[in-house]
């Protein structure tokens, strides 16, 4: 025979059980504390910003077929121009204050022997100590130079090199 006594206690017991289960769920869930950096949103924004800046530098003035600023910089190994140009582009913000993005730029090339090597093109005078949360952007440049420097005529001609930039917000 079903007894109808104690219904309210039963409901309360079920509700208390559900509340305990949910508490356990939330507690277990919150052991991984998510911060904005973990969600990669700022990485994405930094990567888009950096590759836009590189693309801009790799475009010849007025979209002519002439040399892009980046091509001239890579050919003449002009660390100073790259630094000032890149920092001006990426650190630009509305208002008067500047952003604090730092970078290290490398040129990766195929040498005469066919092996791939990198050389530092420029940096923002801030050492890269590998603790930074950096993103990598790259762009192709066709240069009229054989890396590493070589003056003999047979080792010149046009070559494709990859400009790789690590950038992070400091």
């Amino acid at each position, binding site marked *: 025979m079903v007894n*109808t006594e104690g219904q*309210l206690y039963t409901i309360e017991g079920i*509700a208390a059980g559900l509340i305990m289960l949910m508490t356990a769920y939330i507690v277990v869930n919150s052991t991984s504390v998510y911060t904005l950096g973990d969600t990669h949103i700022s990485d994405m924004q930094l990567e888009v910003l950096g590759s836009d800046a590189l693309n801009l530098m790799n475009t010849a003035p007025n979209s002519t077929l002439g040399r892009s600023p980046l091509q001239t910089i890579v050919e003449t190994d002009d660390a100073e121009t790259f630094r000032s140009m890149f920092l001006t582009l990426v650190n630009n913000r509305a208002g008067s204050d500047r952003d604090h993005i730092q970078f290290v730029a490398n040129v990766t090339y195929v040498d005469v022997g066919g092996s791939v090597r990198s050389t530092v093109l420029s940096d923002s005078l801030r050492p890269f100590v590998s603790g930074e949360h950096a993103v990598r952007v790259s762009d192709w440049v066709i240069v009229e130079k054989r890396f590493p420097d070589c003056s003999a005529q047979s080792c010149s001609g046009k070559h494709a090199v990859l400009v790789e930039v690590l950038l992070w917000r400091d």
Partner: protein
Amino acid sequence: MAGLNDDAQWIVLMGFVVSFSLFFIAIVLNQSTVIGQTTAEAVLEFPKNDIRDVRDVIIRSEFLDDDGIFFNKSNVQKDIRTLSLSRQNSVVNISSTPPTAENPYTTVDIHYNNGVTIYNEIWRSK
């Protein structure tokens, strides 16, 4: 309902409703920190800029001269293949058809594959 005291049922019910809604709000708050994560990861994962840049440089390389002592076009395209493989983790293949008398257009066949994303294009000069 013998022996059951049915006073204050509204108060008990409201107590349940409030406590459960607090939990749902806590879960919603919990999820709000990861907003945009999937989008950001998808954008980072997809090599949009790599493909765009390599396509651009391949098309530019196609119009370099390929004679004399330098073989500019062959050298540049060889560099592109080597550097893509070692620095961009991608296999890039280029083949092209120069313009002929019947077909005055240059056609470039571009294949890009980084193991996850595959991009193929037949580019024709207009």
